[in-house]
């Protein structure tokens, strides 16, 4: 019992600071505490808010809702807002306490329901539960005579005097009387208004909290606010509305949400923030009129509607180059942005369901997207594959029969796992230079990979299709052999992605994942891309040694002996899997964690938490990305997250301009240098470097060699500033 109540208390209170931070789309506890302090400039409102947030968490705990969400404040922040509103609207009394309790329950239920409904569409519920609770409570409590409406907002000075005596009043007057431009005052008031605090002090506190939380969010809040302010002046709307603070925060919150939270902050999101402001303003004015008859305030309604509307609207785009949705939410614009910049190279195909090449070996793209022959109009996003020899011929002489063509009768494979939805077979293969326009696509197979993603393979050889409709295929499973059926004057494979199961479906512009593009003996690794006309492409061939070396399975231990100068240290990492099936190393000595990912083709270090002096951290940098194939002189190049390289002061400065310009830069290079034999005692040497730049000026370079021997990762040697670190590994 005691243990239960202890757990209840700790769980419910842990979420409190976070729920304050969540009001400003943050997860920074320091910011949360500052915002919490700000909410207590009106102590009654502050107390009501705190109480209600706490109640919400307790109820959530007792109903066994997700503890992690309680801890992160996700459930409580709507309750917190509702409480602030109640405390602001009514004087404290037992009745109010009762309403607060009822309100908590209502608000929590609404939160869970909207989380479910909107969450399924990958949309945030924002403060909708708060809005509904507040409206219902307001409407219902109008009939409760026992509740005493709070008159603070009308008799401000009396109120302040009552709470803090003369000193507080004086400081209030001092702040109000400061020669600050009206616009700036309104900005601070608007920030405070989120917490139902209508004075400068809480606004300033919130502003400080914002700077601590995120430089980008802070700059966005100013831009959002300014645009709204100027827009009000331009259209000649009632500036008092803004002045009062009730409207202004809608611009601020929307700017923060769209400019840098749900989207990766960049110059386009800043432009978006400016462009969408009129929409928010119109929504505000319009809904105010709509709600006026019921005497209901619009509060954050414009913010909620504009953000959810816009996000849902974005989901239907076919291309997302400029406005990029945040996939993994770190609740910080900076983290989201740096992560994304790091991802462009590394995790670019994370966004996509991965489609590989449907063939083995090296192939030529004989017609790419928007090709000159047949890939036009609705069918432009397709590829034709064939094989050529040194003389660029697709056939061996004389080339009169399909059998003379190199690609004829070669097998094709499932490009990804999925279900066969359509099989057409039995169409005769054409003679060379004849086409069958009646059965345009020839023998074809359509495979469904996800709800709206299908791949189609066409012009297969009659009678070779090995799959049947309804069959589930693993990636790489044999489908059939290349033929010359349909509109195919010479044997080739037509491959396209589409959104419907129909054979004649229009094509979808969709990239292919993880392939090698070759030119002579030069190879390039493409993580996600669209092969172009005449490009030579192949699926990477897994190298056994690299594969074995990076096959870190949970339960294994890596024991490192690290020599640096005359010092010899050891580190032992254990491999674990968490609840989300993510694998990570844990070094107990430095309490550091490194999440990694390995899909059998590619090994990547994802995130590091802990001591950056540990060798685990060096390992994180050196093996940031390793393709598990060996191609001589292949070069992998990626960005390194600047947070790992530069100190906080430099990063603090960088943050302000990060969406527009990165003056700090750090690159990871890995070169596939040497590979000896493939049979048993193979050894591999990879050479890499981390090169950092400040304003384009090169800084100290970190060079490293990674050696593989005897079926495992053997040694990493890191050279930096003339010091050499030599780490040798034993896998247990």
């Amino acid at each position, binding site marked *: 019992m005691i243990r239960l109540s202890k757990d209840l208390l700790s769980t419910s209170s842990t979420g409190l600071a976070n729920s304050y931070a969540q009001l400003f789309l943050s997860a920074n506890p320091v910011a949360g505490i500052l915002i919490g302090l700000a909410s207590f400039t009106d102590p009654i409102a502050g107390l009501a808010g705190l109480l209600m947030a706490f109640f919400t968490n307790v109820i959530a705990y007792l109903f066994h809702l997700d503890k992690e969400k309680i801890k992160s404040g996700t459930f409580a922040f709507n309750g917190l807002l509702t409480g602030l509103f109640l405390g602001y609207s009514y004087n404290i009394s037992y009745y109010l306490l009762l309403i607060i309790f009822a309100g908590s329950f209502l608000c929590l239920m609404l939160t869970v329901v909207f989380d479910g409904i909107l969450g399924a569409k990958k949309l945030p519920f924002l403060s909708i539960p708060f809005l509904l609770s507040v409206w219902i409570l307001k409407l219902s409590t109008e009939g409760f005579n026992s509740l005493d409406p709070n008159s603070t907002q009308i008799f401000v000075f009396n109120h302040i005097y009552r709470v803090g005596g003369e000193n507080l009043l004086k400081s209030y007057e001092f702040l109000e009387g400061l020669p600050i431009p009206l616009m700036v005052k309104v900005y601070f008031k608007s920030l405070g208004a989120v917490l139902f605090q209508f004075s400068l002090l809480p606004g300033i506190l919130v502003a400080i909290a914002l700077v601590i939380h995120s430089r980008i969010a802070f700059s966005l809040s100013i831009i959002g606010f300014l645009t709204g302010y100027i827009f009000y002046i331009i259209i000649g709307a009632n500036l008092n509305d803004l002045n009062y603070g009730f409207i202004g925060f809608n611009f601020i919150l929307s700017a923060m949400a769209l400019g840098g939270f749900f989207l990766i902050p960049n110059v386009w999101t800043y432009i978006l923030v400016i462009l969408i402001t009129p929409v928010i303003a119109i929504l505000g004015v319009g809904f105010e009129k709509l709600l006026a008859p019921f005497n209901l305030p619009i509060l954050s309604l414009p913010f909620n509607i504009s953000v959810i509307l816009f996000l849902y609207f974005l989901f239907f785009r076919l291309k997302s180059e400029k406005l990029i949705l945040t996939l993994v939410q770190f609740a910080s614009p900076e983290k989201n942005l740096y992560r994304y910049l790091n991802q462009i190279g590394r995790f670019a195909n994370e966004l996509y369901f991965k489609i590989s090449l449907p063939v083995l070996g090296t192939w030529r793209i004989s017609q790419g997207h928007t090709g000159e022959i047949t890939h036009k109009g609705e069918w432009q996003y397709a590829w034709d594959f064939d094989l050529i020899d040194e003389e660029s011929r697709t056939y061996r002489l004389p080339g009169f029969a399909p059998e003379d063509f190199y690609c004829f009768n070669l097998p094709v494979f499932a490009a990804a796992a999925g279900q066969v939805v359509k099989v057409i077979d039995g169409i005769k293969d054409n003679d060379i230079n004849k086409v069958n326009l009646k059965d345009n696509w020839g023998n074809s197979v359509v495979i469904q990979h996800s709800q709206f993603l299908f791949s189609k393979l066409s012009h297969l050889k009659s009678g070779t299709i090995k799959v049947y409709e309804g069959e589930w295929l693993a990636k790489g499973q044999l489908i059939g052999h290349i033929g010359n059926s349909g509109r195919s004057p010479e044997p080739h494979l037509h491959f396209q992605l589409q959104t419907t199961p129909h054979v004649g479906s229009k094509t979808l512009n969709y990239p292919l994942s993880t392939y090698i593009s070759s030119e002579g003996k030069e190879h390039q690794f493409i993580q996600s891309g669209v092969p172009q006309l005449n490009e030579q492409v192949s699926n990477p061939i897994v190298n*056994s040694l690299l594969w074995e070396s990076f096959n870190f399975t949970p339960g294994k231990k890596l024991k490192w002996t690290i020599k640096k100068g005359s010092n010899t240290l050891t580190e032992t990492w254990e491999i674990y899997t968490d609840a989300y099936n993510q694998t990570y190393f844990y070094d107990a000595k430095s309490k550091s964690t490194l999440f990694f990912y390995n899909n059998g083709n590619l090994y990547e270090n994802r995130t590091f938490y802990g001591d950056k002096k540990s060798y685990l951290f060096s390992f994180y940098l050196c093996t940031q990305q390793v393709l598990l194939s060996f191609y001589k002189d292949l070069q992998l190049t990626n960005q390194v997250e600047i947070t790992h390289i530069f100190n906080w002061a430099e990063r603090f400065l960088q943050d302000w301009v990060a969406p527009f310009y990165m003056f700090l830069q750090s690159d990871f290079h890995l070169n596939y240098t040497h590979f000896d034999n493939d049979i048993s005692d193979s050894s591999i040497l990879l050479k890499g470097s981390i090169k950092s730049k400040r304003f384009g000026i090169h800084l100290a370079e970190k060079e490293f060699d990674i050696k593989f021997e005897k079926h495992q990762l053997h040694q990493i040697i890191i050279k930096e500033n003339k010091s050499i670190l030599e780490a040798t590994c034993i896998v247990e």
Partner: protein
Amino acid sequence: MEKLRYERPVVKKLNTGMMNKFGTRTEYNPVTHIDGVSVKELISTYGSPVFTISERTIRQTYKDCKRAFTNRYPKVQMAWSYKTNYINAVCNVFHQEGAWAEVVSGFEYNKALLNGVPGNKIIFNGPDKTDDDLNLAIENNSLIHIDHLDELYRLIEITKEINKRPRVAIRVNMDTGVYPMWDRFGFNYESGQAWDAINKIILNDQMDLVGLHCHIGTFMLAASAYAIAASKLADLAFHIHSKFNKKITYIDMGGGFASKNNLKGSYLQGNVSSPSFDDYAEAICSALLNAEYSKQELPILILETGRALIDEAGSLCGTVLANKRLSDGRRATIMDFGVNILFTSFWYDHKVSPAQEFSHYTEDGVIYGPLCMNIDVIRESITLPPMKKGDNVVVHSVGAYNMTQWMQFIAMRPNVVMIDMEGKHHLIRNKETLSDLNDKEVMPAYLKDFSI
């Protein structure tokens, strides 16, 4: 205007039912040039007869073969079968293309080393490996393919003596549904011999069993036999893994692919009846892909095909020595090359083309070699236009085995020339002279003098 060529008259029986009164025409066109080099020029430069090797054809054929496999299976390694043609220039073309070396004797092994092949990329096959050979192969970390138990026992002894751990594979023979079954090399699959050898190797723990090897026959006209062999080997490898937790890194399917030559007694011509690389590749690769391996653990597929890679690249240019009429009225042509240098004419009906223009008249006849030996017959029956002394011919597809199985019998071995990618010709093996023969001989003193 060039003076018209004189062709002696031909007497021919008229057959009813033929397409025209002249009978069927010859299938041959004159072959006056090889890779752009005129046959006359080759003969005038290097003498007659002369073997020519087309570098272009080697590279093209190699790539054809490789393409057929690598587009069906991710890990393919070719190993050049030295016994098929071990002229160093030929070997090095294959090594340049990326092939390892496959040898079956100590001298071939050393030849590969001298060509610059790294020791760990030499596969040592065959039933005859001396202690010295084995020691050298172990020293160089080569892949030793064990042929019989006696070799296995000897290898165990040697490893104990020198305390080294060689990398080995066993050669497995098996019933693949073809006749004759090659069971004289390696350990039998069906009878359990193979398992016996595997158990001995692994339990003895002196050697590293890294591969399995088979070589199901020669000039295999049924690609399907390879599918059976591949799946049997894959099965064996899989069960070795489950029994001993020992990963078999490669499966060596040996060679035996048919070239486009016409096998004696076969009804169809070789270019029709011989399976293509694609046919072999399809059989082998799909059998391996269908075996119980995960994508990352697929064994490396090693191929040692020799004949199919080199046969077409080799030609023999020769000259007519004489014409004569046999007692039964058949026409006989005597060439300046015989079975001594064209050993393969024992089992192929080699295609022979005249190297100069001719009219459409043809005649049935026999082609004999120059040897004063009754067995010296190049073609027992061939339809050729009439030729006269001094005319040249080209014998096609002679690249495989002739330049290794040829013998110094009655006549010496001729020059071998390689025609490179640009159409330039290079002498790659000098013709032998009497001193090559005499220098090796030792005359006991008492036999030196005589008077007749």
